[in-house]
């Protein structure tokens, strides 16, 4: 069985209504149950050349406690996948496992059919929170240039192509005017854009974004959406973790619902069902019947 690229995305799902900003609620989404084809596949042994990321029976844990168990998943190349789940559901762990930053308890991961780490530049990753020293003497340009280091190689200096790639990445995120500022002087939104620019400068064909919308301003949110659309046209596979249902609905092809393990995967019609949402979000979600629809509200968690 071969996974197919899901290319009509949400253009096929018209009956969505999204209302926001109810008090202490991050999103309210009305649901309809309908059928649809999905590019994200939970069957084993189905990976092919079109599979960007393949996980087979993957379990990961920290200090004895499993954080993610038995994840089997195929992600089609070029897909935009939202990874949804409450805080602590294992979204970040999933990304770190794909990046090869955590040892696997069991199972294996293939990136374009190869074990992670075989080729350094394939997967770019923007963690939820960069654990950096804000007084570190580097400019925004220096930070974005770090994205090129995997391509430049040992003992060599950056060339013209690297500098151009860095300029382009900064331009796409509208931070070119900040290029020579120390990284510590940026606002949190600008910093998020700088780290995203660093990931773009890697020119990887798979991009993992962990909660990029948390605590950012409107210009940054717009910049991220523009970049996501641009990446889509260029066939880059994007995985984006969020706990926010609206964001997941409006800009992604498929949704992956996790809470310790994969609860459901597929397009919105398939996965936004009351019983699935309850399994994922537990008491953090409120489901309200409203005519032929069900309204879903998740608690607003902004760590």
């Amino acid at each position: 069985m071969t996974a197919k690229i899901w290319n009509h995305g949400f253009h096929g799902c018209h009956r969505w209504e999204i209302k926001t900003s109810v008090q202490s609620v991050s999103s309210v989404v009305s649901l309809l149950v309908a059928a649809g084809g999905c590019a994200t596949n939970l069957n084993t042994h189905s990976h092919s050349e079109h599979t960007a990321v393949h996980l087979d029976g993957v379990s990961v844990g920290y200090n004895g406690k499993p954080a993610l168990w038995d994840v089997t998943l195929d992600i089609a190349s070029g897909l935009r996948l939202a990874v949804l789940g409450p805080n602590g559901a294992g979204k970040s762990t999933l990304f770190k496992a794909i990046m090869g930053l955590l040892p696997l308890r069991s199972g294996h991961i293939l990136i374009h059919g190869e074990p992670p780490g075989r080729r350094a530049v394939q997967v770019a990753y923007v963690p939820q929170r960069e654990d950096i020293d804000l007084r570190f003497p580097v400019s925004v340009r220096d930070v974005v240039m770090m994205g090129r280091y995997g391509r430049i190689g040992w003992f060599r200096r950056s060339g013209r192509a690297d500098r151009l790639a860095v300029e382009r990445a900064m331009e796409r995120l509208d931070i070119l005017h900040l290029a020579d500022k120390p990284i510590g002087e940026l606002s949190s939104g600008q910093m998020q854009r700088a780290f995203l620019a660093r990931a773009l400068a890697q020119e990887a064909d798979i991009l993992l974004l962990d909660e990029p919308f948390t605590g950012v301003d409107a210009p940054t949110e717009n910049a991220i959406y523009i970049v996501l659309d641009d990446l889509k046209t260029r066939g880059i596979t994007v995985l984006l973790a969020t706990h926010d249902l609206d964001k997941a609905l409006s800009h992604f092809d498929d949704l992956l619902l996790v809470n310790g393990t994969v609860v459901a995967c597929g397009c919105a019609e398939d996965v936004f069902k009351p019983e699935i949402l309850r399994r994922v979000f537990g008491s953090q979600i409120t489901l309200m019947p409203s005519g032929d629809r069900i309204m879903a509200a998740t608690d607003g968690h902004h760590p």
Partner: protein
Amino acid sequence: MLDFLLAPFSYAFMQRALIASTLVGALCAIVGCYVVLRGMAFLGDALAHAILPGVAIAFLVGGDLFIGALIMSIVVAVGIGYLSQRGRVREDTAIGIIFSGALALGVLLISSAQSYQTDLTHILFGNVLGVSDRDLLLTIGFGALVLAAIVLLYKEFLIFAFDPTFAATLKLPVGGLRYLLIIVVAVTVVVSLQMVGVGLAAAMLVTPAAAASLLTRRLSHMMLVAAAIGVLSSMIGLYVSYYARVSTGASIVLSCTVLFVLALIFGPRDGLLARYRAGRRAR
């Protein structure tokens, strides 16, 4: 005035002292930038003290003190790296244990020797005026090695120091870079022992780099400014010790401290004076 500046260097030992202390001043300051940025100041101090048993053993068996110190420093550096990486104990605890144990062992060994007092003083506080031609050659040789590592691995050390997680996603050997950086610091400490001794080596690593961090906004500039501060304080220290007839190592370190305080007060951006002025303007 010119006579005042040149007079000390009519002696050959003062010429050697000048070359050695400016070289070591620059080298320590450059390596010190990573020590400051990675929060390794305590490690640098510990390394300097932990070298003592190596020096003592070399001294007792009539071997080369420099080689003894070098071997010991690398053993200790790898030991600390291993203990803390396994997560058995916190890094500062691991350093504290090895540091004090090694220092005690060193003092114990040296105290068994006849010329205990003078030798211990030289090892603890340095003896830059006693630098031999051979010492100078060793300093130049190992200094060049350390500088080569810093220049050739500039990108890799920069990214490792700034964002180790990102370095790992680029599949850089983060563990290897970590050990290499500790070893670079260890070799630098050994090279600086002759000048300022075990007790003050950490100051030469940390103080010029800390002063430079107040004055600059990019790593390469920070390294150059730190090197300049290291060289300047070595020269000032030599003059002070020559004319005031006081300890050379202590004079050099105190010159660093004074330059740091000046940077803290008069720094153009973050200096206390600049902040005071900015505060008044805001009001």
